């Protein structure tokens, strides 16, 4: 007998969805997580930046994870279970202590989250010594294993997570030498660099590109280029922060349609994938948002799954793709299905590749349906209202951003 719902990933999105399904009376829900403990990424973020909206008070990541798990206490959460293959119609291959098995559900929700881009795909020149980590790896070493991997690291990138790395290092008694950001300003919101500079005494080098890594066994230095000048900074570690990508390996090797822009699955406004037995939510869809956003998306996807199991969500007979062109990086949902609920009131989320001031336009074939002047920054949400999208019409829908 298939379960009602299998949820892959017991982080904020997966647990929120499970809770919402339970409240809707759907209790045959199994949440699978490949880690030994549920909770997802917040488990290893020790700083107190979680839970304001969900629990009404600031919590550390582990406290937040614990609250989520407590809220989901009636849910069947199975850890140490790895999903190895997704097949049509809700058939899922797993491996656990029972070996490899096939399980099935009427609906499958994918909430596998995102990870940072490590060194190799960044194509950095130089040697390959040890002492090169991502923030996620650093946080787990510090918070879960009590390790001190280095003494004088530099941090590459200035997304919010870079400042999370600073706090993690401070917790371990390590002072970073610098934050190195190739852009002309930090990617995270403004006060972050001031906190780094003035409260923590860490220089934030903007317009600085990492040129090469030096060191035989352990990192010995990084070479950077700033305003045309090369400089070598002696250090013993490198934290590659940010440049999140969805943890979408399962989707890449499945029948589900993948979006080149987000790197995650293509979904419609009801969180449905190209195979309507599959749904997706959270940072798998869009690198990257906070745990709180993932939690809310998970809950919304849970509600949508409940509706579809009740028969209140019809299968679409037309799916209209929304296209984006450079300098837009991605938009999601990527698809509007012509079935209930209508997309009125829905906001599309988009991102840009680089800082752009210009006119954001929704076009249907060659006609501008909606437009607005915006100042968009990388890794910041760009909201596009869906009110103008008449999805019963076939045609080419495009969201574009023209500088000027």
């Amino acid at each position: 007998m298939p379960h009602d719902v299998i949820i892959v990933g017991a982080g904020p999105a997966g647990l929120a969805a499970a809770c919402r399904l339970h409240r809707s009376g759907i209790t045959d829900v199994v949440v699978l997580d490949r880690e030994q403990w549920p909770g997802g990424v917040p488990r290893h973020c020790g700083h107190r930046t979680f839970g304001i909206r969900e629990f009404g008070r600031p919590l550390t990541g582990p406290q937040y994870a614990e609250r989520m798990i407590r809220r989901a206490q009636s849910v069947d959460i199975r850890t140490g279970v790895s999903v190895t293959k997704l097949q049509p119609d809700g058939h899922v291959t797993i491996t656990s202590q029972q070996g490899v098995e096939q399980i099935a559900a009427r609906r499958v929700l994918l909430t596998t989250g995102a990870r940072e881009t490590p060194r190799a795909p960044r194509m950095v020149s130089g040697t390959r010594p040890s002492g090169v980590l991502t923030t996620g790896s650093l946080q787990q070493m510090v918070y879960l294993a009590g390790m001190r991997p280095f003494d004088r690291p530099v941090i590459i990138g200035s997304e919010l997570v870079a400042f999370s790395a600073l706090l993690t290092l401070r917790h371990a008694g390590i002072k970073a030498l610098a934050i190195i950001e190739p852009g002309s300003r930090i990617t995270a919101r403004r006060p972050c660099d001031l906190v780094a500079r003035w409260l923590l005494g860490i220089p934030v080098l903007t317009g600085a590109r990492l040129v090469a890594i030096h060191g035989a066994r352990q990192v010995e230095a990084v070479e950077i280029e700033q305003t045309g000048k090369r400089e070598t900074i002696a250090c013993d570690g490198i934290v590659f922060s940010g440049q999140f990508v969805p943890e979408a390996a399962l989707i890449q090797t499945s029948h589900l349609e993948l979006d080149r822009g987000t790197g995650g699955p293509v979904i419609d406004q009801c969180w449905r994938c190209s195979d309507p037995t599959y749904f997706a939510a959270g940072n798998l869809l869009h690198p990257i948002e906070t745990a709180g956003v993932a939690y809310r998306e998970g809950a919304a996807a849970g509600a949508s799954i409940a509706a579809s199991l009740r028969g209140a969500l019809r299968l679409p007979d037309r799916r209209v793709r929304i296209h984006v062109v450079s300098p837009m990086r991605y938009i999601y949902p990527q698809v509007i299905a012509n079935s209930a609920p209508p997309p009125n009131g829905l906001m599309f989320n988009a991102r840009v590749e680089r800082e752009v001031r210009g006119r954001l336009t929704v076009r249907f074939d060659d006609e501008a349906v909606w437009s607005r002047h915006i100042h968009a920054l990388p890794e910041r949400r760009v909201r596009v209202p869906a009110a103008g999208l008449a999805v019963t019409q076939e045609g080419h829908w495009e969201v574009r951003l023209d500088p000027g």
Partner: protein
Amino acid sequence: MFDVAVIGGGVVGCAVAQRFAVGGATTVLLERGSDILSGASKGNSGLLHTGFDAPEGSLELRCMRSGYAEYLALRKELNLPLIETGALVVAWTEADLLKLPGIVATAHRNGISDVHQINARDLSVREPRLSKRALGAVVVPGEHVIDPWSSPLAYAERAHAHGAQIRRQCEVTGGTFTGDRWELETTDQLVIARVVINCAGNYADLVEGINRQPSFAIRPRKGQLVVFDKAAHDLCTAIILPVPTAKSKGVLLARTAYGNLLIGPTAEEQEARNIATTDEAALRALIEFGRSVIPDLEGCFVTAAFAGLRPATQFKDYQIHAQPHRRWITVAGIRSTGLTASLGIAQYVAGLYVENFAPLGDAVAETQTAVPNLAEVNPRPYQQVGHGEIVCHCELVTAGEIEAALTRPLPARDLGGLRRRTRCMMGRCQGFYCQWRVMQLASPYFAENPVRPHAT
């Protein structure tokens, strides 16, 4: 006193040590690095070559042919994989196309009789994702993919099981020949052996200097490689080779035993013997080349980018000689074909030894010598009932595999050695999810503990 001291724990040194240990000689393998495969053998493309394009009549061809045959004979006993991909030498230009019949003819003269040419249409049926620019190809059915890390490990463990000593962090710094034996000074203790075999890879000319003025000079040739994630694995079946130029065999695309797709290597001459750096422009050029061969590589995720050094010399052929009066055998200039040829080289070296020094017999193995399987074509522990905790999710490596690698007869003693024995942290996340857990399991076993506890 040992019968034989083998200097260098690369794939050639491991295979040679194994041959002598199996032959009943008391053998010691001396490796300067903290683990075997610390030098040239660390980075290669993991192919088992037929020798179809090797220089006719060369020692290299002879060793490749016999090494290939012995690998096939030995691999089941050692639990080593064989991924029977075949290779295609693809013509991308009219000039390339004109060279294909010559490639077939050379292969036939080299004794590889099943090599044949196909046209563009047949090529497109075999490899539908290959760029439609391809004009034709030579099929080499016998070219295969193997596991470049487990093979030398299996040879070293086989040597160990037959009584050989494997000494790591033991660099040979000098030596004295006393007329009937060598006294080798090392960074560890003095090693006395009746015969020395120099398999020192990128350091072979320096080690040779202990014995005599070397007759060759090592000219390290750097090869950079890019590895794509599992989703790219199925984009081609066969190893995709270019038509070689006078200078280089060129850049190939091949599946790996671990379920990835690899592109490389570059060929860049350099001075340094110990450092192979990656270079952003070269890596991007490799990826660009890959996309020109298989357009669907666009958007595929890169999991690794690395560089290796091949120990080339000024000579095209291998430099393998015995100096009977000095009780010394030189094994040098084993460029890019060492993984294939190593067992054949070991046979050849054993022949030189028997001819010049002493007979070899048969030793009895003390322990079983099968290595854990890392290849996707064979069952892996994560699929078994009761497999325990999966630590590395990208490569599906269990805690049991990591513990085994740390406690086997030739245990991993650093993170690189552990990665090569288990694949842990070798996947797309490069340790984002598992590094902390790997370090937690492994650091008690490491001599140089790379992580210390923090205060809070």
